[in-house]
């Protein structure tokens, strides 16, 4: 009777499940990938048990003629458990190498048990070893994919948060807004800045907007273009725009680049810009008599 390719592997998983789990844990310690600083033993054990259970379920029904694909429905359990474990580990700061080695460590206990099986022909043994290798490798690659996807998501979320944080529109005075720009101004941020700014103008009925570029490192033609476009949009809304924080260095660069700011008012410091803005909405800053 021709033996199915997974029979021996399943026998091991069925008869010595907890043995495999323990040894898997042991190999992780030996390989130095068990982060006892990040996980308790009990947690690791539960995760390994869950993973192995899902793995053996996949092996049982998801392998036909030594062919398998982790995308099949039979492997749904493994994918789900893996997603949970990876999410947990990413958030605790496990590295991709540790994650991959953690999965690959499953090979050793399985090989050892295959070898110890009585009456297994050498050719069968090699076939089984090959299959286990392919299964565990696919498992590890899939783990890495999930891991990377999880990281990407975190990065994307942080990027979004930074975008929001980096474009605050502040109401300095009644009808006077300021927009302190910091860092580099690329197209995506310029768009965000503009939309944010115009919306706030509408909400606060602001008449003057001070765009402060003290914190902007370099001003090239593209950045200047973005600034002037924002200023033009502000004007179309019916408010006025003052660009402040133009350092002598930036002024020189802008002239050398031939950037024409047109009718947009520019000031060197936010201080003069503020007093001009206040004047425009009908206030003056005066020193008290005491001083």
């Amino acid at each position, binding site marked *: 009777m021709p033996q199915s390719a997974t029979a021996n592997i399943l026998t091991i998983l069925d008869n010595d499940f907890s043995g495999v789990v323990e040894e898997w844990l042991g190999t992780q310690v030996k390989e130095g990938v068990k982060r006892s600083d990040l996980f308790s033993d009990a947690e690791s054990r539960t995760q390994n048990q869950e993973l192995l259970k899902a793995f053996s379920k996949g092996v049982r029904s998801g392998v036909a003629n030594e062919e398998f694909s982790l995308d099949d429905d039979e492997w749904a359990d493994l994918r789900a458990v893996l997603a949970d474990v990876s999410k947990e580990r990413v958030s605790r700061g496990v590295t991709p190498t540790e994650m991959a080695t953690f999965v690959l460590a499953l090979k050793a206990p399985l090989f050892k048990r295959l070898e110890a099986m009585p009456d297994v022909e050498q050719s069968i043994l090699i076939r089984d070893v090959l299959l286990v290798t392919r299964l565990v490798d696919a498992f590890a690659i899939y783990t890495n994919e999930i891991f990377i996807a999880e990281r990407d998501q975190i990065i994307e979320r942080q990027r979004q948060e930074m975008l929001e944080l980096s474009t605050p529109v502040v109401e300095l005075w009644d009808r006077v807004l300021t927009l302190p720009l910091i860092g580099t101004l690329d197209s995506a941020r310029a768009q965000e800045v503009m939309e944010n700014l115009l919306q706030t103008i509408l909400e606060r009925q602001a008449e003057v907007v001070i765009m402060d570029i003290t914190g902007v490192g370099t001003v090239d033609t593209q950045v200047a273009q973005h600034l002037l476009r924002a200023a*033009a*949009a502000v004007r*179309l809304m*019916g408010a006025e725009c003052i660009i402040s924080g133009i350092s002598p260095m930036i002024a020189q660069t802008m002239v050398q680049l031939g950037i024409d700011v047109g009718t947009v008012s520019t000031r060197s410091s936010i201080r003069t810009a503020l007093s001009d803005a206040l004047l425009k909405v009908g206030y003056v800053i005066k020193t008290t008599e005491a001083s």
Partner: protein
Amino acid sequence: MSGVTSINLVENALLVSIQDDVTDTEIVDLQETLSNRIAKDDVKGVILDISALEIVDTFVGRVIAQLAGISRLLAAETYVVGMRPAVAVTLVELGMYLPEVRTALSLTHALSQLRRD
């Protein structure tokens, strides 16, 4: 006069409200009606309220610029009021900075600027 736009005399200015379902023909007709009214009422300014407009394309942008040109010739300043943020962004992206029109946040704002002049 077109049914979807209204022209009212407010102080020394003509208030023109453009409705959102205005058609291209109606907005062209507005040019003629408006120029006649500017001459007849002898106003200092024209206030174009476009707060109802959600979409402004290059055509409407150009007509607004032309309206401003016409009223300038008839000695009146054109104020565009109530432009929505999305419209402002679109116009700027299209390269239509409308340098010939003055802008104001609201009708009150435009009127107070007209009084100041």
